[in-house]
């Protein structure tokens, strides 16, 4: 009897609590003052197009208030309602996924209410976003680095974009705090990956990942230094275009961007995966020119790259790269003639980092006032060239700060890129939807579980690349490959010996990319 009474009392209390909660919600909707502007939220998730498989866009409401209420809804599916005293709005992952799954291609609305200290609610203008009809590749890989050339703590990470899971692929702690950089994939497939490593202890291997195995490769020949910079996979998966760079860091005394990088020499080579040979072709490794940032057309017939006259360091401000291409027959190994696709003069700047959309329709690149190392430029804009019409234009999503290191998703509907637009210094990964006409929509910041995550992060993101699956090898496999390379190459039988500079500090060799 007593138990029954107790249960009844509990149920009654619960019911009261429920009614009270509902009353509160009703009060929000019925008795709120309308404000004719959207609420200030951070990160800026207003008017953006988002992938249906993206993790919840948690955000901070930057309006003074004692209480916060957000309703997220669309045409179909259950709306998500969040009450919070704090301005941090954390959206439940499961309900978010259901809502997005039910509304591909539709608008997604955020109603934001803020309660003042006198319990009066204000309702801000509804924030409208759009759920795209095409998903994004579920993983993003990037480096997180301190803004320095001292690599005390550098990691190569992968992030599951469908939730907030981030894992370390390789941390430089595993190979004597060397440097790893410039990862590239064959058609967004991590089962075919190239990653460069530089270590004063273990040398400068290029790590090749194929069939879930890692192999350290030496690209050093009589003509090449073995310090590979950037790489691009030929669509046939048997060939890599690689660069051989000799960078020097410059320090500006006045301008906003303190650091600058000058390429004392840069040439392109091919690396054949079947024969493990480096192929040098004079047409793409001219002494009087620097050639960098290779990119294969998706049909594999052309090698695109950026090229500028090789100038003395004092004329660093005159380094302006043209976009070039050369025909190459991967079967016969025959080269065509060099062609200028787009001159630096035509864009009044230096063209860098060309990247083809998967359907070969668009070529995305960036343009900075000068340099073949755009991350250190005060400004660098994204451009898109329509390969059918040959027309190019600056993308409206470009900011006043450098937007660099862009990559396409495997379905060609999304681009990921680095941007310093938030604060001018720390590069962060952004995503933008690119429709069939090549129109890029307002970009959004990589969402984090803690919406204030970036506020206290002293690391910069670097080279965000979208991939279709997680990287199939572990950090220990990668580091063991680096270490084994060091053991092989330091032995007397090896034809490769670390150069004199490599015995010096890492600091002098590697630069932020």
């Amino acid at each position, binding site marked *: 009897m007593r138990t029954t009474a107790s249960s009844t009392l509990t149920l009654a209390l619960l019911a009261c609590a429920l009614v009270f909660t509902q009353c509160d919600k009703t009060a929000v909707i019925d008795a709120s003052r309308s404000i004719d502007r959207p609420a200030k939220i951070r990160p800026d998730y207003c008017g953006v197009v988002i992938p249906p498989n993206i993790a919840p866009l948690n955000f901070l409401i930057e309006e003074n208030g004692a209480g916060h209420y957000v309703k997220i809804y669309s045409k179909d599916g259950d709306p998500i309602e969040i009450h919070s005293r704090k301005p941090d709005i954390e959206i439940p992952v499961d309900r978010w996924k259901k809502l997005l799954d039910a509304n591909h291609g539709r608008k997604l609305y955020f109603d934001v209410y803020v309660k003042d200290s006198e319990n009066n609610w204000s309702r801000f203008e509804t924030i409208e976003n759009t759920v795209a009809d095409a998903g994004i590749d579920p993983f993003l890989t990037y480096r*997180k680095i*301190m*803004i*320095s*050339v*001292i*690599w*005390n*703590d550098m*990691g190569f990470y992968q992030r599951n974009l469908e939730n907030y899971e981030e894992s*370390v692929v390789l*941390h430089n*702690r*595993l190979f004597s705090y060397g440097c790893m950089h410039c990862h590239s994939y064959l058609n967004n497939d991590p089962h075919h990956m190239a990653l460069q490593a530089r270590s004063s202890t273990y040398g400068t291997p290029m790590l090749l990942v194929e069939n879930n195995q890692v192999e350290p490769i030496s690209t050093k020949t009589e003509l090449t230094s073995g310090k590979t910079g950037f790489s691009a996979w030929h669509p046939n998966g048997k060939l890599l275009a690689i660069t051989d760079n000799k960078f020097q860091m*410059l*320090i*500006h*005394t*006045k*301008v*906003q961007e*303190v*650091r*600058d990088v000058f390429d004392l020499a840069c040439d392109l080579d091919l690396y054949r995966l079947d024969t493990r040979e480096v192929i040098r072709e004079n047409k793409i490794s001219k002494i009087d020119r620097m050639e960098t940032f290779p990119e294969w057309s998706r049909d594999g017939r052309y090698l695109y790259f950026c090229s500028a006259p090789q100038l003395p*360091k004092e004329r*660093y401000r005159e380094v302006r790269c043209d976009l070039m291409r050369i025909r190459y027959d991967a079967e016969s190994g025959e080269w065509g003639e060099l062609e200028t696709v787009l001159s630096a003069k035509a864009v009044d700047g230096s063209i860098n980092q060309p990247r083809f959309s998967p359907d070969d329709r668009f070529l995305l690149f960036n343009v900075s006032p000068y340099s073949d190392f755009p991350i250190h430029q005060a400004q660098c804009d994204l451009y898109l060239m329509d390969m059918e019409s040959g027309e190019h234009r600056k993308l409206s999503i470009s900011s006043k700060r450098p937007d660099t290191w862009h990559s396409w998703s495997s379905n060609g509907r999304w681009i990921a890129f680095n941007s310093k637009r*938030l*604060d*001018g*210094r*720390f590069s962060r990964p952004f995503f933008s939807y690119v429709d069939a006409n090549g129109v890029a929509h307002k970009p959004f910041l990589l969402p984090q579980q*803690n919406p204030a*995550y*970036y*506020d*206290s*992060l*002293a*690391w910069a993101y670097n080279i965000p690349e979208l991939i279709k699956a997680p990287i199939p090898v*572990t*950090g*220990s496999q990668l*580091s*063991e490959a680096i*270490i084994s390379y060091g053991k092989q190459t330091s032995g007397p039988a090896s034809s490769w010996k670390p150069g004199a500079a490599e015995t010096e*500090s890492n*600091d002098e060799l590697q630069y932020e990319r």
Partner: protein
Amino acid sequence: MVDAPNTDAARDGWRATFFFHLFFYLLFFLYIFLYLDPRLLHCSIMSYWRLPPYVPGSGGFEQIPGFPGKTAMCAAGVLLYCFHYSWAGALIITAVAWLLSWGTGQCLDVMSDGRLRALRFIPAIVVLLQYSRYYHFMMENLSIALGLLLFYLYTRACIRRGALRFILFLFFSAVIYYAAVFAYLPFVMLCALYELLVKRAWLVDLGALISAALIPIVVSALLFDISAAEVYLCILPNDPAVLPYDPLSVYFNGPVLYYFLYVFFPIAGLASVYWRYNSDKLQNRFRRVDADKGKARKKKSRKSKDDKIQQSKADTSQNANPSHGMLSAIILLIILICVVLLSTNHQERHYLRIRFYSQQRMWNEVLYEARNLGTKYFNVCYCHDVNRALYHSGRLLDEMFAYPQPIDWCLYHVEAASRSLSAMERRARFLDLSETYYELGRVNEAENFAWDALAGLKYHPQALKRLALINIVKRQPETARALLRILREDFLYRDQAQELLDRLEEDPDFSSDEEIQRIRSLIPDDDSINEGSLTELLAQNKHNRMAFEYLMASYFQRREVLEIVNNIERLRDFQYATLPRAFEEALVIYMQTTGQRPDLYGYEISPESITRLQELINILNKHNDKQAALTELADKFGDTYYFYNVYGFSGSQLIR
């Protein structure tokens, strides 16, 4: 601290022991707090170098991938953060020393049946030795303390069945390997000795030894992504950062202290058991215990052997001669005092205090410590600190030759001059370089060095603050805001960061801040990728006093007297009331050697300066040999430009 006994006599003994321990650790604490000053370690690069610093906000320890012993390492990093307050640091060090000592006592109780308890103070004394030499082996100490704690729990678990004890061993070993890998082998060896020689359970012992080889593989496979080699290498104490450290010390050097605790416990355990077996008295006791064991089996008594050990310990305590206790206490105190007297690295203390005071901008204290450092311990970095202190206290051109000023130690560009330093030492200097460049008006170089400081030390709040200020000077408020938001996460710098953020909100340009405006006025007008010179900075702003004094000081260093003469007029730009001493002496030399009197622009040379040069010449003539006159001249003129001009070095009046 010690187990409370039951009888009155034992209670009195226990009280005496308690108060002795209290006295011992109070002295320990006070010495560390008042003399060694753990704040010095907080600002020391060496400590940060070996530990991941506590990074507030995003990107802290979770950024670092898991590896065996990461927990202890991170805990040590967090504890080091507390060293910001000297009392907190001293308290932590004392607590760790006590924990090690207590664990050792428990370990010896079990292994030697209550004998050899005096050895329990050895780890505490070793900890004191470490810190008196300014080594911060906190990660190792914490690991060993955890190992001892788990060993204590293992031996006190009252588990009779060997199989269950073996399972407990597996669990504890896995915990140690995961959290405090440094203590893994000592823990395994202690357990193995305990099973073999105390419990005489050789099967458990064998199982423990075999499983000890397998546990690293299993734990690593389940929890870490590390290479096969690292699975076992991390067990060994192989921190390379320790080895090149402290070349000044011969006996109490880093490696010895680093490895001591590692090997102490297994050796102490072995020695305890050896002692136990070789003591007739103990042998009898063992026989009695064995007999009791037999009886116990028959009577199914639950009284454990450990209880008997406790009882025997209590008996020993009760029967002990009080004078023995007093004697032990006196001997211990003598050892403690000897340790303090023999091991304290005063030189390192001076170094660290110079660094600390320099960071705190306590210039008089920097100069005081420098005077006590001794010329032979000076290097380019401390020269940089001293010159900066001299400049900020308005004494650079008066007193610079009271300190060593070798010609190849460029006054401010330490980076180029410090190639002889280790990478660690150079990285420790990035923030100082940043500060100096900032003060000179070369804010871009200052920013570059501050980023390097932040990356080199993995986290450094002062570097963050410097970067924020630089970006305020450069009128980049959004970057400054981002940096201050990061700094705001730091408990120790929260208020400073918030204050700057508030000011940025009110006035993004900081137009009312005189210091910011002053620095802005010093920045070069034109961009260049070439290293700016002091001359260029002066051309940009003729009131850049620091650039002027450093330029003049560099002329003095290079003994370019003519350049000094050519710059007399500039003294008016800085409203010097009289000629600085070094200037005066340079001009006297100029007049003496050329016979010309330069235009002094209203300044006067004191007759004393002329007399002193004459006196110096007389002494030189008397000896008729520069080297023969060195000692006498060094005593009388060691802090003058005259002496430097003759011999090319200075600071000879400091302690050598």
